[in-house]
C-alpha cells in the first residue's frame, strides 16, 4: 500500500546535479531556457503581477541573521520527482511520469484547473494567464521542435525533452551508445552555464554514481550537515526529486560545525 510505483522502468533515469557552490547567479540558464523552449517574453507587467514564466529561475536566499547575512543563489526548476505531488491530482492525465523518470506535461490534455500548480512544493509550474505573444522581430527565433503553448494551460521545465529525443534518435540511427555528457543531449540551461554549476545525466549511469557519493551519509529530512554536500530540496516531503543540490562550501559554517 505504501510502495512506490513506476520508477526504474527504462534504462535511463534522467537527473541533474546542481552545485550551488559554483552558481554565480548570472541568469544565463534562464535566457537559454527561454529561447530554447519558446517561453513567452516576460515584460515588467508579468513580474509585477507575479505571472512571469521562467522554467528555470534563480532565486535569492538570505542565510544568517544581520550583521553576517549571506546571499545564496538557488536555481529552482522542476525537480522531476519520482513521487511528484503534482501528478496524481491532475484530473485529465495532463501530467504523468514517463518511463525515463521524467515528469512530462501534455499541453493538449491540460484544462487549466491549476491543481498541479498548487500541489508542487517547488512552485516550478507556470500558468499561461495571457495568450503568449512575441514581437515581430522574434517570430523567426521560435524553436520549431517545441510547441507554442496557448493561454489557459500549465507548462514547466521538461529537461528539454526535445533534445533528449533527438539525440537518442540519432544515436539509435547511428547505432552508437548514447553518451551522457554531450551537448546535444543536455538541456539548454546546462549548456549555457558558464561555471558548469548544472550537470545533466543519467541517474542510472555516471551521474548516479556521482550523486550517490555526494548524498552519502546524508541524514535525510533535509539536514545534510554530515557526509557529502548533496541534498534534495524539501526532502521531508518525500517527493524523491531527480535533482540533487550540492550545498555551498562555507568555511565559517564548517568552523561552526567543528565547534558545535
Amino acid at each position, binding site marked *: 500500500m505504501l510502495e512506490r510505483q513506476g520508477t526504474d522502468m527504462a534504462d535511463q533515469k534522467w537527473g541533474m546535479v546542481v552545485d550551488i557552490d559554483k552558481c554565480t547567479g548570472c541568469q544565463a540558464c534562464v535566457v537559454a531556457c527561454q529561447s530554447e523552449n519558446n517561453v513567452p517574453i516576460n515584460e515588467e507587467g508579468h513580474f509585477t503581477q507575479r505571472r512571469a514564466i521562467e522554467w528555470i529561475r534563480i532565486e535569492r536566499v538570505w542565510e544568517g541573521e544581520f550583521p553576517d547575512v549571506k546571499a545564496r543563489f538557488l536555481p529552482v526548476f522542476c525537480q522531476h520527482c519520482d513521487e511528484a505531488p503534482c501528478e496524481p491530482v491532475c484530473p485529465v492525465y495532463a501530467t504523468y511520469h514517463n518511463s525515463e523518470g521524467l515528469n512530462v506535461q501534455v499541453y493538449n490534455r491540460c484544462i487549466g484547473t491549476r491543481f498541479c500548480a498548487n500541489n508542487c512544493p517547488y512552485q516550478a509550474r507556470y500558468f499561461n494567464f495571457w495568450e503568449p505573444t512575441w514581437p515581430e522581430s522574434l517570430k523567426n527565433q521560435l524553436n520549431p521542435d517545441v510547441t507554442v503553448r496557448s493561454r489557459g494551460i500549465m507548462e514547466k521545465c521538461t529537461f528539454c525533452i526535445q533534445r533528449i529525443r533527438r539525440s537518442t534518435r540519432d544515436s539509435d540511427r547511428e547505432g552508437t551508445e548514447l553518451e551522457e555528457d554531450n551537448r546535444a543531449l543536455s538541456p539548454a540551461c546546462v549548456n549555457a552555464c558558464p561555471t558548469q554549476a548544472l550537470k545533466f545525466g543519467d541517474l542510472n549511469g555516471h551521474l548516479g554514481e556521482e550523486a550517490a557519493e555526494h548524498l552519502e551519509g546524508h541524514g*535525510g*529530512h533535509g539536514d545534510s550537515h554530515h557526509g557529502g554536500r548533496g541534498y534534495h530540496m524539501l526532502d521531508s516531503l*518525500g517527493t524523491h526529486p531527480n535533482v540533487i543540490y550540492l550545498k555551498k562550501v562555507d568555511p565559517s559554517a564548517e568552523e561552526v560545525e567543528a565547534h558545535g
Partner: protein
Amino acid sequence: MASHVDVKSHQGHGEGQYVPFTTQEEVVSDLITKHTKVSDKWISGVVAAGLLLLLGVVGFAMRLANGMDDRVVWGYYALMFAFILSTASAAPMIAIAPRIANAHWRRPISRAAELWSAAGLFSLLLFIPMLWILPPLNDGRRSLWFFDPDDPVYSQVPIYTPHIWAALAILGLVIVGFVLLWLSAMPDLALMREHSTGFRQKFAAKLSGNWVGTTGQWNMLHHRMGIIGAFYFMMLIFVHFLVTMDFLIVLVPGWIDALFPITHAANALQAGVATVILSMIFMRQFGGYKEYITLEQFWGLSKLLFALSLLWFWFWFSSFNVFWYGKKPSEQAVLELLMVGPYLISFLAGFVLSFLAPLFVMVWNPVRKSIWGPTIMSVAVLFGVFFDKLRYYVAAYSVPGIGDAHVHKHFMDMDAIPKVHMPGLPDIFIILGVIGGAVFFYLIFARLIPPVSIWEQKELMLYKVHKAYHRTEVFVLGKPR
C-alpha cells in the same frame, strides 16, 4: 382535530410497545420489589466480577514489581484504561442525548446507562498509574503545551502539565457523572426512603434529601439534569481530547492527525451504545425487567449503533486518505506503525468488527428491529473497539525513545518501527481484571439505585398514550415544552 384522549393505556398489544400495567401504583410496587429483593443471579455476577478484579490486581502487582521505567510493557494497561474510558464513561451519553432530544423510548433505559458513570470511578482509579507511566514533557517531544527548554517564555511551562490537566479533567468527569446519577436518582431514592427498609432505607433517606416532589422540585430537576447532561458531554469530549493528545499522539513522532481526538470520542460513543445494549440484554434476561426493556428500546439504540458504525468508517477514512495520498515519509511511517505494519491483524479485526460487520448485518431493518441483532452486533463492536485501541495504544507505547531527550522526536524512520508487542500473562490478567472491575462497580451501584428509573417510567405513562383512532390504533406522544 384535537380530540380528547383517555389517559388509560390499553392492554396486551404488540410486543414491546408499553408497560403491561394500567396504574402507576402497579409500576412502582413492581419495580421496587424487583429492586429490593436480591437475586442469586446478581450475587453470582458480583462474585465472578470480583474474582476477575482480584486477578487484575494480581496482574497489576506483577507489572509493578518490574517498575514503571520500561513503558513498553505498560501498553496493555494504557489500552485497558482507554477501553474503559471509551465504554463505561461514554455510556451515560445514551441517557443524556435522548433526554435532551426528549425521546420517550429512552426512559426505561436511561438509568441503566447512567449507572455506568459509577464505573467511571473505576476509570479514575485506572488513570492514577498512568501518571507515572507518562514521562514529563522535557524529553523533547512535541506537545500540546509547547514546552521548550530554550525559549524564555515556554520554558516556564511546568513539565508535568499533561498529568495535572488530564487528572483534573477525569476527576471532573467522574464528579459530573456522579452528580448526574444522583440527580436523576433522587425521586426514586425518595421512593426507596418510603417503601424500603434497612440500610437501603437509610442510604436512600440520606441521599434523597428533602425530596417530596413539589412542582418546583420537578422543574428544578429537569432543568438541572439538562444542564449537567450537556456539561457531562463537554467534559467527555475534553477528556478524550486531553488523553489522546497527551497520552497517545505525542508518543508517536510525526503523528499529526488533527482529527484523532474526535475520532477517539466518536468511537467511544459507538462503544457506549454497545455497552448500554449489552447491559440492557442482561437486565432483560437475568434482571427480570423484561416488561420494561422492550423491542422499542433495542430498536432505538440499534439505529444509533448503525449510524455510529458508519461514522467510524468516515472518521477512519478521513485520516487514512490524507495520509495515504500525502505520502510524506513521516506519515508513511505512522501508517506503517499503526495500521499496515506489525499491528495489521489488530487493525483488520477492529475494522471488520466495528465497521464491516455492523454495516452488512444492521443494514437490514428486520435485524435492526430485533432483540438479538443489536445484541450480537454490540458484542462485535466491543471487541472491535478493543482491537482498534490495541493497535493505537500498544503500538504508541512501544515506540522507542519515550522519555529519552536524545532521541529525535519530530520524525520516525521506517526502520525505527518496533516489532509487535504481545501481551504477557500479567497483561492478560490486567485485561480481564479491568473488565471485571467495571462490571463489579456497575453491579454494586445497580443494587443501591433502581436500575430502571421509576419516575421516568411513570412520566412515560403520562405522555405516551395509546388510543383508538377511527378504525386503527395510534400512539399519542406528548411533548411537554
